[in-house]
Every structure is written in C-alpha cells, then in structure tokens.
C-alpha cells in the first residue's frame, strides 16, 4: 500500500532539507484519497444532525 502523500512530503523535506512541491499526480492523489477517507463519515455526521433536528424542531422551549 502506498504511503500517505502528506507524510511522504514531510519525509522528503526531512531527508533533503529543501522545499518540496507535490507534482500534479501526487496532488490529485492527495485530494482523491482525502475525499475517499472522509466523505462517508462527514455525511453520516450531517445525516445524524438532520435526523435529530427533525425530531426536535416542534418541541417548545420556555
């Protein structure tokens, strides 16, 4: 399995001591993997908020 793009970038800076820039392919991989890692969890959180709001929205606060 490939290492994480950001960790690879940090490792390259530590090894060379010089500035490193992600090329187009690595950059694209970072955004793709990040979305893949987080999208489902974020949607679950938002879905839970929507469900909880629907349950509560008609309750009176005095």
């Amino acid at each position, binding site marked *: 399995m490939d*290492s*994480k*793009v*950001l*960790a*690879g*970038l*940090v*490792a*390259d*800076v*530590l*090894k060379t*001591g*010089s*500035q*490193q*820039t*992600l090329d187009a392919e690595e*950059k694209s991989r*970072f*955004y793709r993997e*990040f*979305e893949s*890692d*987080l*999208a489902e*969890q*974020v949607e679950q*959180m938002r879905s*839970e*908020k929507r469900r*909880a*709001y629907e*349950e*509560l*929205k*008609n*309750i*009176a*606060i*005095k």
Partner: protein
Amino acid sequence: MERFEVYRITAGDEAELAQLLQSLLVTKGMKSGSPRYTPLENTIRHISSLGAKSVLLQKDVQDPDFLAEHTAYYSKWSYKVPRFCDRLHFFDLEADSEDPLEFIDKMAANQDSYLGFVTLRPISVSPQAATILKPPNNDTKHFILSKDDFQVNIAGQRFSVAGTPFMQQDNAVGACAQASIWMALRTLRRKEGQSAFSPAQITTAATRFLVRGRTLPNRGGLVVEQITEALRTAGYSPHTIPLRELGQDATEETITASRQALYPYVESGIPVLVLLFPKDAEGHAVLLIGHGWDKEPASFIKNGDIRIDSSENPIELYDASSWVAPFFIHNDNTGPYLPLPDNMEGQYSLGDAVSAIPFLQLDIFVDAAEAKLTCHRLLADSLEDLNKLVSNGGTGEQVKEFPVLVTRTYLQDKSEFRAAILSSDMEKDAKDFYRSKWLPKRIWVTEINLLDGYSESPEGEACRVGEILLDPASEPEDGHFLSIHLGSDLLPHAKATTGVIIDRNAFDGEIRAFAVGGSRYAPLVR
C-alpha cells in the same frame, strides 16, 4: 426630582445591596403572577463579589429594548405601564461625595472602577432588563469568552465595561429563548456587524412564518424551529448540534460528548444557545458563554490516535475539553455568569442538554466537529508511517520518543491569529510565513500541544508544538487546509530545531512543504 442619586454600600455586603435594590424596585406596572427575583438575587451576589462600594442610580432611562417591548405589548394595556426604566451603575471605589456630578467625574477619572450596570424595568414580576457587568474575578478559574466592550455614557462622561449582556425574560413579549438570543446578539453586534434585535423583534422574527398560537403575550415560548428561524433572520447560521436523544438518560458518555462538542465554540468566543430538557420538566434555553479550568481532571477524553510506525502502539491524542469544567452560562431565570454543573439533581446541568445552537457566522461551512475530524485526519496523514519513510533515506538524526498530544480546535479571526503568533515564541521563519500567507477572514485552528504540562495552560506553561489551519469556507472532505505546521517534537527524525510547514495555496490547491525552526511555544490564552 433629581435624575441621579449616589449610594454608598459596604463591599461584600450582599444584604445591604439587596436592600437597596428592593427599595428601588418599581411596584407599578404588570402585577399578575409571582415576582421572579432569582436572577436579581444572583446578580446582587455577583456584583457584591466584584467588590462594589458605590452605586449611581440613573432615573427615567429610555432603554431601547424595553421601549420596544412597551411599544409591542405594554402600550396596548389600559393600565398605564410606564415607558422608562431605572438604571443602577456600580463602582468599586467609595463615594466621597453625594453630589452626583462630582461623583461621576471622580469615577470617570478612575475608569477601572466601573463594574457595569443593571436596568430595572417597571414590570414588577420580572424587573431585570438589560444588564452588563464585569465577569467574575479570578482569571485562572473563569474564562468568559463570549463578551465584548460596551461604552456607557453618563452625564457627559464615558465609561466602558467588558462583559456579556444579560436580561431576565419579561414572560410576555419574550420567554427564555428570546432572552438568550438577545444576550447573544448583543454580545456579537459590534464584532460581527449583525443586527441586535430587541426581544420584541426576536419574537416577530421567530413567528413570522411559523405560528403556533398567539404571538403576544408569548408565554408559551418558542419551538426549536422558530428559534432557528430567528437566528437565520438575525444573520446567523441556523445550525443545530445534537447532544443527547430526547428521553434518553444522561450518562457520563453523553456529558463527555456534549463537552467535546460545545468546547470549540466556547473557546472561539461564540455564544451557544443550549437547549436543556431536565427529567419531567419543560425545555429551557440558556446561553453558554465561557468555561472554568479543572487542573486535575479525573480522566482524559480521547481524540483518536495516529500511527507514525507500524507498531501496535498508536500515539494517543487527547481532547482539550478534558480540562474544561464547568461551563459558564447566562440563565435568564437564575442569573448571569453561573456554572453549569455536569449533572446535579434539581438544578439545570450539562447532562440535561439535548441540543445546542452556536451563533455561527453564515460564511462558516465547516462546523467544529467537522473541523476537528478534518484536522485530525490531516495530522494523521502527515505523520503516518513517517518513521519508515524517513529511515529508508535516513537523516542521520537519533530518533526521539514521540510525545502524547492534546489537540484544541477553535475558530479565530485571521488578525487575532496573526497577532497571537507575532507575540508568541514561535521561530521567526514560521512567524514570517504566517504573517505573509493569504488567509480568509476566519480560520479553524487546531493546536497541537504536549500533554506534559497542558494542565498549566492558564499560567502559560503548556507547550504548543504545531497547528493546522483549515479554511472554513469549504467542504471537510475536500481537504482545503491552509497550512500544517509540525514542530520538531512531532518529527522524531528531525533535529531538535527543525520543523516542517506544509503550505496549501487556497486559490489553486498547490501544496508545498519546507523546513522551518521547530521550537516549542505556548498555546493561545485568551
């Protein structure tokens, strides 16, 4: 009749102060119902604890909020309800003159002596109107973060008080939700440039499209949907956070989760409307405005973990909310600057919280929970298997032990962030980066701190070893971070003085990384 009167009181003598206020309470006006003096009693206790030694009574004040309440409701009465209020100003200097103007001039020359004011409405059942007082003394135990500076003009002299506005519901034009929303909008008016509605305007905004009975008198309160509508109309995001299932008993887990969910907003200075549903009681709204500090929490709240090598032992991350207890609230039916205990029978407590609504700006698309999730993922992605990656090439440095960490997430204005960085002990090259990097108006900051010494944060003894900045005007899964700063403590193979910044260009998404000084510095203390 004199417009001003001066009173001397004994510092710390609550009974004397209470007697003075009782003598001033107006007994005319609406007389139905039992008087609700609890907020005023707790306010007196607070003023007394601030060391008040003199009081200036200002009569016939045209308080804009009560005038709006009067216009909307009390002016319709056949009974003549007065339009004007009394206002009491408090000072911690003794009055050496009974001449009001001499007294005002002397106090103006000692600006720090001003403790704030309490407005008394001519409504006997709920007398306490607009109130702004200094927060409790003792800064290391009380962090009242939702506050602002308010100018007060008295007889040509200008005074200033930093505090959180408070008022008691009048139980006719507005109930607890309106009172809490008013407090939040008043607090944010100058900072956010948004509307500060009167309680009457809040009721109008809440009931404009969603009517569930008579809007005036509004003794039935508001439903949650009306509250979110009022916030939206006032220019804030109607964003609700679930904390506990309605009907589910509060447990240690739900209380811990509530503290975790609420703390980032409190630390950001964002007031939060917390909806409490005590067992067998009606729903009630309070305003969360600050927190205390528990130096020795019974346990630490985990924030997940990260792996810097393939060993079985991940690095543990703890949540900064572990040290936050209790929260402080303004509760319109009990008083200002009161602690909200975790769980206490017969008293409103954090365990009663079912939902919360932070006064989040409309341009913040990533909420606190999403910001935390995103920043922790970015931290993990920046360090995952770093040992293996670096040792393949080798840096020649001795591998250091990886520390246990505490993360703390808050929303901060870029100008405040830059000012804090500039005055910190951060290395110059890292400071220069932050000073010149383009940043949006507001940013989510996730501080990375060492667990070792974190309990001494209020004294400035804790060590911050990095931070992640996230663009709040984005989607969490898009990875739109602004920068990731990793100090040498986070880089086991780096020299003790070497850190790394990963910089993402907010406009084109380009990502670069470079070495900077990697020393430790202190976390933000507000």
